[in-house]
């Protein structure tokens, strides 16, 4: 077990290091941030002053070493655009993204499981066919386009919900959240549903497959034979057992939600990390790009590590396989 964790940690470290190098070198080859920062009418002296101030006059490997050294102190450089610590800017926007992703995860469970269980119990019925067709659409529809259509229908045509922004926020333990105010909730609903769409389809599939397998198990037959009501059999005996694969897969998919929030945040102008990275790429705000990519890679490496370790705890076969390989 220790060997396994150490190996995984080493691999995680290697990935983060490789990414830091790739990202830093790559990003420094793109565009010219000086053009962005300096007034068009500025003279050569002014330009050189800015270049010096940003440390862009040094060779790239010196810049990289500086970058690594400072990164260990939590200093990933100042944003060219905002003039603040890029790490601070990202951390400040993290709660918004996590709130959105968690809301989407919750929606996937609340909407996906009942639909999936229903279509698993009555696979031949018309409603089930509609649900399954819907889940195929959910897989195929491009997220960003659905988001646009949501805005079109619910915000522009019907005027029920706001189209952009985050609404009123309330601080909890120093973190601003929007799910505690009515205004915040109304802002949260559409983006969360948009982000959840793909996962809802996934949960429907999983719940349906699970249900179809489990209804034929002996313990379900026994519960029926005992004279338990259908509701109790479905809600207690069946639900408990289909939740295992659903929860596992959703845990794995949480990272995907954070990655995909880039799209949803851009559509709904949700002030999270995803919107920040897109804005920064367009502004060639290198320190923020580098910091975002490093943080997101770190987040993913941590998620993957936790999932791997949990898996090996739950299923010893995984561990053995890895030691052999």
């Amino acid at each position, binding site marked *: 077990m220790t060997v396994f964790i150490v190996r995984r940690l080493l691999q995680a470290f290697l990935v983060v290091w490789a990414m830091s190098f790739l990202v830093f070198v790559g990003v420094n*080859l*793109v565009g010219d941030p000086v053009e962005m920062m300096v007034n068009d009418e500025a003279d050569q002296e002014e330009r050189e002053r800015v270049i010096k101030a940003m440390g862009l006059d040094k060779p790239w490997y010196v810049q990289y070493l500086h970058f690594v050294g400072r990164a260990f102190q939590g200093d990933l450089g100042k944003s060219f655009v905002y003039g603040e610590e890029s790490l601070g800017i990202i951390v400040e926007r993290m709660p918004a993204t996590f709130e959105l992703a968690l809301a989407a995860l919750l929606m996937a469970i609340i909407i996906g499981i009942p639909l999936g269980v229903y279509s698993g119990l009555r696979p031949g019925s018309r409603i089930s066919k509609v649900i399954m067709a819907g889940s195929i659409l959910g897989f*195929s529809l491009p*997220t960003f386009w659905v988001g646009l259509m949501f805005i079109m229908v619910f915000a522009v045509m019907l005027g029920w919900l706001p189209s952009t922004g985050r609404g009123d926020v309330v601080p909890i333990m120093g973190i601003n959240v929007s799910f505690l105010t009515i205004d915040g909730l109304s802002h949260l609903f559409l983006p969360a549903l948009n982000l959840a769409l793909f996962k809802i389809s996934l949960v429907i599939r999983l719940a349906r497959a699970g249900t179809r397998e489990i209804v034929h198990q002996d313990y379900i037959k026994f519960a029926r034979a005992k004279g338990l009501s259908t509701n109790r059999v479905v809600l207690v005996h069946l639900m408990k057992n289909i939740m295992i694969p659903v929860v596992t897969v959703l845990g794995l998919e949480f990272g995907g939600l954070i990655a995909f929030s880039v799209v949803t945040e851009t559509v709904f102008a949700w002030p999270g990390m995803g919107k920040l990275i*897109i804005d920064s*790429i367009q502004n060639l705000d290198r320190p923020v790009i580098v910091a975002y990519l490093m943080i997101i890679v770190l987040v*993913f490496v941590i998620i993957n590590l936790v999932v791997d370790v949990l898996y090996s705890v739950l299923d010893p076969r995984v561990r053995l396989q890895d030691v052999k390989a």
Partner: protein
Amino acid sequence: MKTVAENIALGAAAGDKTEAVETPFERFRASFFASKVASVALVVLCSLIFVAVFAGFISPTNPYDLAQVSVLDSKLPPGAKSFEGTAFWLGTDGAGRDLLSAMIYGLRISLGVGVMSGIVAMIIGAAFGLIAAYFGGRTENIIMRIVDIQLSFPAILVALILLAILGKGVDKIIIALIIVQWAYYARTVRGSALVERNKEYIEAATCLAIGHRRILFRHLLPNCMPPLIVVGTLQTASAISLEATLSFLGVGLPVSEPSLGLLIANGFDYMLSGKYWISFFPGVALLITIVSINLVGDQLRDVLNPRLER
């Protein structure tokens, strides 16, 4: 050497004799068209490809020929008449281009980028997958570790990282899509090649002292094709979707190459003032493309994989 005519005659004669016998291709064709949905999807897909390839002949106007575009016609709703009297079936966009024409050209770019990146990724991925499965040991370990690490990140994130580094451009997005996709192909091919390489015909080929390259590509690869074709179809759909998403985000294709995703992005600005069609119709086209490819791919998987119950 027989002449071509003789070959055809021979073929015809053989055809006459074996009329009752089904060739594998005929069997495949029959089971593919057994599903009505998949048949319709295939027809739709073929028409889309046809429209995309012959865009210049089919499209009512050339949306990028400035002589044919008038700003006076901008943002007209579907069915409106232009300043000069021609009808715009699906309306016009912000620059006064006929939306239908812009979509036809956009479809060409979307399909082109998706298919091109898919093919290159398939070649690279298949080569690495085959090598990993055939040689095993250290080579396999290194290749598959890289594949595993890459696949532990969502595709959109990998693409975003690459495009943040590479910048905008047709070539850049194709490179990004190739790098995103190759790992899926490598994993698929390795999976089936691992099964195939232990079969007797590979052993026989090895005993005949045929070169590695010939065994890999002439013996092993053809037998790994079915799953590769399935993954290839489904991956192409997701590549098209990914390209549209990235272009929408403004990190994909440049404005000079308006794919369906970019057309949707352009319409976003006009959406809040109720001009829905500029985003709506390109989105529908994108959806039809992706769904039809996915349906064809699903059917291919069902037909090519006898282990699945139908």
